């Protein structure tokens, strides 16, 4: 069994994306805020993470970087919308970028391509104590 974390700030979009991911054989934890995503990631190592944002409000850390550190074996997909294109895909820890709207075929291709070509984690793995110190509570 594989496990996925889906972060979408819009609940309807989140549910739609979560259903798509679930249809691909994942047990999905859907969340609507970066803080909840981090809380989930500090408990569980996911196999797949789909996120619509790379930032945490009021926090200088990269959300995607933190998620990648917590789940170092996960494929991390970033869902790019008009509001995030300016970053030009430069997101720490992100393996693949998919465009809105999230379609089943695009998602499946991103997952299949991403899993096949997933590089070894480049990010430093924090010591447990350090990782927890950095947690958002």
């Amino acid at each position, binding site marked *: 069994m594989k496990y996925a974390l889906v972060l979408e700030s819009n609940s309807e979009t989140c549910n739609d994306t979560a*259903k798509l991911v679930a249809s691909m054989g994942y047990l999905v*934890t859907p969340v609507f805020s970066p803080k909840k995503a981090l809380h989930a990631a500090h408990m569980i190592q996911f196999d797949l993470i789909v996120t619509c944002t790379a930032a945490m409000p009021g926090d200088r850390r990269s959300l995607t970087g933190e998620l990648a550190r917590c789940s170092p074996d996960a494929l991390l997909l970033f869902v790019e919308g008009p509001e995030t294109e300016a970053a030009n895909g430069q997101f720490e820890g992100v393996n693949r970028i998919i465009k809105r709207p999230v379609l089943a075929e695009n998602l499946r291709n991103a997952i299949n391509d991403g899993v096949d070509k997933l590089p070894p984690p480049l990010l430093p793995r924090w010591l447990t104590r350090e990782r927890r110190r950095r947690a958002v509570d």
Partner: protein
Amino acid sequence: MPTMADNPGASPVSLLHKLLLVDDEADGAEFVAALLRSHGMAVTVVHSASEALRALEQEPDIDAVLSDIMMPGMTGLELANAIRAMHPAVRIVLMSGYEIPEPLRDRERDYPFIEKPYKMDTLLAALRRAA
């Protein structure tokens, strides 16, 4: 949420009826509980050791406890020792995201221990091992 339900491929931990999850991090505990429920387990979530002891008295069908170690008040290790004394048949698995203090390291080996964040397969294996 439909994505966590109807999971025919999930395999429940054998012989496990009801799990008590003890963690002062409420959000994280609920996320784990939802995934465990999708594996066919009944899960009760509480956020302190005292609540856990009350739940064990009130819900005699609880046969396993998954507890965080570092909690305000009674620690998970103290809770585990109390449970073992009062409910010796209950399986116990401890978890923590913190480095375990030196004095607890020997005692922690009395119980299966997993480090947060953990893979769900690791958790399920620990629950089996705790039998």
